C-alpha cells in the first residue's frame, strides 16, 4: 500500500509517497530525482548506489524505504552542496580516477565515509574501504591514489 514517508536527505526533510517494498535507491532516484546514486546491479554487488545512513556507507539498493525513516541520509549531491567540490571529488578528477563515471559517485561516498572516520588511511585501508565498489575501467590504482591525495589535502587544510 502506498504510504507517505518523510525522509531526512542531505539535511532537508523530504516528503514522498512510496510502497514499503521500494528501495531507498529507487525513491532517491525516481521520486526525489537525486540520480547521482547509480543502479548498477540492485543486489549489493557493485556499490554504485552507496549513500551514507547515519554517517555510515550503505548500499541503498537493499535499504527498504521505511527503514530509512528517521535516519540521516547523505547522497553524492550533498558533497559539493556549497558549490565547492569535496577534496575526494577534486582528486578523483585530477588523478584520473574517473573514467566512464558510473561507479564514481558510489566510490566517492565510500572514500568520503572512510576519511570521516579515519583521516589518515594507509593504502591498505583505502583498498579495504572501497572493496565493495566495483570499477571496470580504472583498475583501481588511480582511485587509491586519488583518495590518498584527498586525505593529504584534508590533512593539510586541518593543520
Amino acid at each position, binding site marked *: 500500500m502506498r504510504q507517505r514517508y518523510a525522509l531526512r536527505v542531505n539535511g532537508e526533510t523530504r516528503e514522498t509517497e512510496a510502497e514499503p517494498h521500494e528501495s531507498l535507491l529507487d525513491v532517491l532516484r525516481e521520486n526525489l530525482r537525486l540520480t547521482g546514486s547509480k543502479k548498477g546491479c540492485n543486489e*549489493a554487488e557493485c556499490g554504485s548506489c*552507496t549513500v551514507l545512513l547515519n554517517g555510515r556507507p550503505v548500499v541503498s539498493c537493499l535499504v*527498504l524505504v521505511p527503514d530509512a525513516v528517521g535516519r540521516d541520509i547523505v547522497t553524492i549531491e550533498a558533497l559539493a552542496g556549497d558549490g565547492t567540490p569535496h577534496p575526494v571529488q577534486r582528486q578523483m578528477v585530477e588523478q584520473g580516477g574517473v573514467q566512464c563515471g558510473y561507479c564514481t559517485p558510489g566510490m566517492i561516498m565510500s572514500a568520503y565515509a572512510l576519511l570521516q572516520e579515519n583521516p589518515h588511511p594507509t593504502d591498505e585501508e583505502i583498498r579495504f574501504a572501497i572493496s565493495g565498489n566495483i570499477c571496470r575501467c580504472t583498475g583501481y590504482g588511480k582511485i587509491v591514489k586519488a583518495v590518498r591525495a584527498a586525505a593529504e589535502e584534508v590533512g593539510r587544510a586541518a593543520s
Partner: protein
Amino acid sequence: MRFDYFEPATLEEAGELLREGKGARKPLAGGTDIVIQLRRRVVRTQGLVNLKRIPELWGWAREPGEGLRLGACTPMRDLETAAAVGERFPSITEALRVVGSLQLRNIASVGGNLCNASPSADTAPPLVALGATASVRTPESRLETVPVENFFEGPGASVLGTGGLLLAVEVPEPAPCTGDAFERFTPRSAMDIAIASAAAAVTLDAAGERVAAARIALGAVAPTPVRALRAEEFVLEKELTPDVVARAGRAAMDECQPIDDIRGSAAYRRELVGILVRRVLRQAMERARARSETETV
C-alpha cells in the same frame, strides 16, 4: 514483490504479527538476503515484520570473563570494528570482514546471517567453533537456548521453522590458553561467497604444548555448517606438529560431505578443507600460545 510491512516495537507484537501470518509473513532484520530473494522471486511473502526497531534485539556486550552477547539485529560492522571483540574472538572478526562489502555489513546482521541458514554463512564456523549458543523464541513464545551447532537443519532451514525468532547469540568466555581462527577460500578476494571455510578454537594445556580441547567447524562443505569431529578427536592431547596438523586436515577432508555446484566441485572443496583446517589449526595454536604467555605473566 508487493507485501505488507510491519514495524513492531516489542517482541510480543512481533510474535503476534508472525502468528497471525500463519507462515505467510517473514521476519526482516538487515534484509540483505531476503530483499534479494524477494526481488528474484525465489521467496514470496505476504508481509515483512521488521525487527530492527525492537530494542532488545539490538547491540552487543562484552564483559571480560563473561563472554560476548550480541543481539540478533546488530549490524555486522558494529562487531567487526569492536576492538573488544577482535582481541578475544579474532575468528569472529575475520569472518565478519569478508561478508559482502562494508556497505552491506552496515546493514546486514549476524542474526540474519545465521537465520538465512546458508551452508556457506561466514559467521557460522567461528560461532560453532567457539561453542556459541542461540537464544530462540519459539512460535509458542517459549524461550530456548540452542547451541549454534544445532541451529541449522539444512540449506535455508533452521530450528526456528516458521514463526520462531532468533533473539541473541552468546559466545562463552574461552578457557585460558585458547586461540581461535577463521579462513575461507574465494576466487576473488572481495565480494565473494566461500567455496569452503573453516574455523578452529584450540585450548592448550598449561605448558602451552598439547591440545587440551579443540573444536573445528567447516562451512560450505555440507548441507549445514558442521563440526569436524574426527579431526578434533585426532588432535586431542597431541602437540600440533606439522605432521599432526596435516593429518587432522586429512581427517576433516574424509568426514566432510561437499557437493558439486557452480562455485566448485566436491573434490576441489575437499582439497580446500584439508588446507583450510591446517591453516586455522596452526593459527589458533599460535594465538593460544601467545595468549598463554600473556595470561601467565
